[in-house]
């Protein structure tokens, strides 16, 4: 057989029926994740037709979008934003009970954002096809899975048939050579990539991230990268599994143990692109050129280095974005006054992100103007963080430590940015009003978010600490002179 890409192998292995001119391929789905927002209409459709789930054990449910991030009151009542939110949660409970679907409910130790808990529980594994009614399902591709977001009709299709009808997409290799500089995270890298290829640069394609800088990322960084593939228009992004992947999965609750684990790893090692496999497109990125990256407009493609000049608008839409943000061409995003800082989401709500933020906040206070929410991505992330004292650091800095959920990323649950406020957010979308009507969002890494909370303006974290990369230890954190720091960023701790 000729050389195949990782995507080709995943595609071939899940073909129930190959595509023809007349009909799309029939693709088998190994794991189906659902949440309260995009599933109720699918359950209703099935029930109206008298159809049951074909393989209910392959569907797993969680509650994340509409759920409060404030704790229950003294009566044990959760402070839902409104009755619709409460009703949506209740509906998922009823649907899961009726159809024998495992649900990680509000009181479950395993509950959290769907794209955080899949990997955390080891439900997500190399070689799988994984779908969810949520565009950030691309996250799971970090494990060498084919994972993509689907609409509610397709949620119903998977429930009924465990399959989807698919036309084969094109492949895009993003080769990231070299090494990221100290203090540069996967979030900076993916924003840089989207800035380079454009918000529609991956449309019609599945991305495979490759190269030395990708291999050097831990699993959390890889998830951050794959998560935002959709922000470049690509439904899926993936990274071939390696020892980093296997080490992450070892000992996870839903991963086989002992000899079965060794056998699984032996199988997982086959999920890579063959030498000489042809991609439809190849884009090269020099990792060393990536700086702390933020957005200046109203879609994720408007990304640039934090201290670079905002470009002159190419068209009316870009100008509208700049005007909406209250920025001006020629200025930098760094130095802009910040009202809200949000740390969390399926992009940056993992334990490494919490540690990174705590490392910068430790011993400091956030700016008096700033409201800062730190929202762990899952109950497990919350437990781990609290065991390490991260919650105390966050609170001592003047920020709010919340219960797990999607929170202010999608602003469905009452956590929102007020009209006109500028938010520095570790989430994935800066569309107009995404974080609340009239909200202005600057996408950034956890380090940039934490530094901006302290400075009260969008700030480069390297001004505060050296070695602000994921997984760095406290001993790496040294105060340094704000050499060449952007305006407003040189605030002392």
């Amino acid at each position, binding site marked *: 057989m000729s050389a195949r890409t990782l995507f080709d192998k995943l595609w071939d*292995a*899940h073909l*129930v*029926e190959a595509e023809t*001119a*007349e009909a*799309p391929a*029939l693709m*088998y789905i190994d794991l189906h994740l659902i949440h309260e*927002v*995009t599933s109720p*209409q699918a359950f*209703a*459709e099935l029930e109206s*037709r008298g*159809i049951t789930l*074909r*393989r209910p054990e392959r569907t797993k449910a969680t509650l994340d*979008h*509409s759920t409060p991030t404030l704790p229950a009151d003294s009566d044990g009542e959760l402070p839902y*934003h*409104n009755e*619709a*939110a409460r009703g*949506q949660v209740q*509906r998922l409970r009823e649907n899961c009970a009726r159809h024998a679907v495992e649900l990680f409910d509000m009181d479950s130790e395993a509950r959290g954002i769907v794209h955080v808990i899949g990997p955390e529980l080891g439900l997500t594994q190399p070689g799988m096809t994984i779908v969810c*009614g949520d*565009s950030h399902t691309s996250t799971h591709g970090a494990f060498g899975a084919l994972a993509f977001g*689907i*609409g*509610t*009709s397709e949620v*119903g*299709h998977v429930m*009924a*048939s465990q*399959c989807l*009808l698919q*036309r084969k*997409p094109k492949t895009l290799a993003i080769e990231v050579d070299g090494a990221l500089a100290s203090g540069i995270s996967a979030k900076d890298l993916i924003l840089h990539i989207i800035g380079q290829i454009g*918000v*529609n640069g991956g*449309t*019609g394609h599945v991305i495979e991230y490759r190269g030395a800088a990708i291999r050097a990322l831990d699993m959390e960084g890889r998830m951050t990268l794959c998560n935002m593939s*959709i922000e470049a*228009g690509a*439904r899926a992004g993936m990274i071939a599994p390696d020892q980093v992947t296997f080490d992450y999965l070892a000992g996870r609750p839903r991963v086989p143990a002992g000899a079965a684990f060794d056998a699984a790893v032996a199988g997982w090692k086959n999920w890579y692109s063959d030498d000489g496999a042809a991609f439809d497109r190849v884009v090269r990125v020099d990792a060393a050129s990536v700086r702390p990256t933020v957005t200046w407009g109203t*879609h994720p*493609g408007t990304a640039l280095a934090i201290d670079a000049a905002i470009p002159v608008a190419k068209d*009316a839409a870009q100008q509208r974005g700049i005007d909406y943000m209250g920025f001006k061409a020629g200025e930098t995003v760094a130095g802009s006054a910040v009202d809200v800082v949000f740390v969390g989401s399926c992009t940056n709500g993992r334990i490494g992100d919490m540690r990174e933020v705590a490392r910068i906040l430790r011993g400091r206070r956030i700016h008096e103007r700033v409201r800062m929410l730190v929202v762990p991505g899952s109950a497990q992330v919350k437990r781990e963080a609290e065991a390490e004292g991260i919650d105390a650091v966050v609170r001592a800095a003047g920020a709010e430590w919340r219960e797990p959920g999607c929170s202010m990323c*999608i*602003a*469905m649950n009452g956590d929102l940015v007020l009209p006109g406020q500028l938010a520095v957010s570790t989430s994935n*979308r800066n*569309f*107009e*009003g*995404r974080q609340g*009507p*009239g909200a202005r969002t600057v996408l950034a890494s956890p380090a940039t978010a934490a530094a901006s909370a302290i400075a009260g303006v969008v700030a480069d974290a390297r001004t505060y600490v050296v070695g602000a990369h994921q997984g760095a230890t406290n001993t790496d954190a040294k105060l340094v002179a704000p050499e060449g720091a952007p305006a407003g960023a040189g605030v002392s701790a």
Partner: protein
Amino acid sequence: MNPLRSVTSKSICWARSNIDTDQIIPARFLSTTERVGLGRFAFNDWRYLKDGSPDPDFVFNKPENAGRSILVAGPNFGCGSSREHAPWALTDLGLQAVVSSEIADIFRGNSLKNGLLPIVLDQAIVDELLAHPEWELAIEVADKSLRLPDGRRFHFHLDAFQQICLLEGVDELGYLLARSPSIQKFEESCHAR
């Protein structure tokens, strides 16, 4: 799904690029468990003035656009989330076709499952359409064409399977259920895990 065989209408012309799903229907309206009646939330944050009255300058509020069922939009329409609420809201507004030089993948797939025809044409053609909201356009699903009043016809891509689904008004679920023997075989053989 009701069949969609042809659409004849003047178009709502909106040159803006990257119109995302958070604009088509903001997330705070996704707390519903229904799929009908979502048109009233479509473009909510662009459609109304601060006092809650319709913004007369917003494209869907202009009297001449009332009743039109074709939207011609700038590139990368529908980017963002997988929410099928987006095509549900647009069809509830009365739209039957969206024309753009680029339509985001998930939105495109969701639209086809709801009788909303996504049509991708070259930007030069889209630009011409955008300049002529007074033109009555005639779309035929059977020959995958869009015809202008002057007789010119442009063909667009539509998957043969999707074309049949639209013409016959059938959805994919029935087709999938009929594949059960193949799926059973697959589950029993190479994928027994």
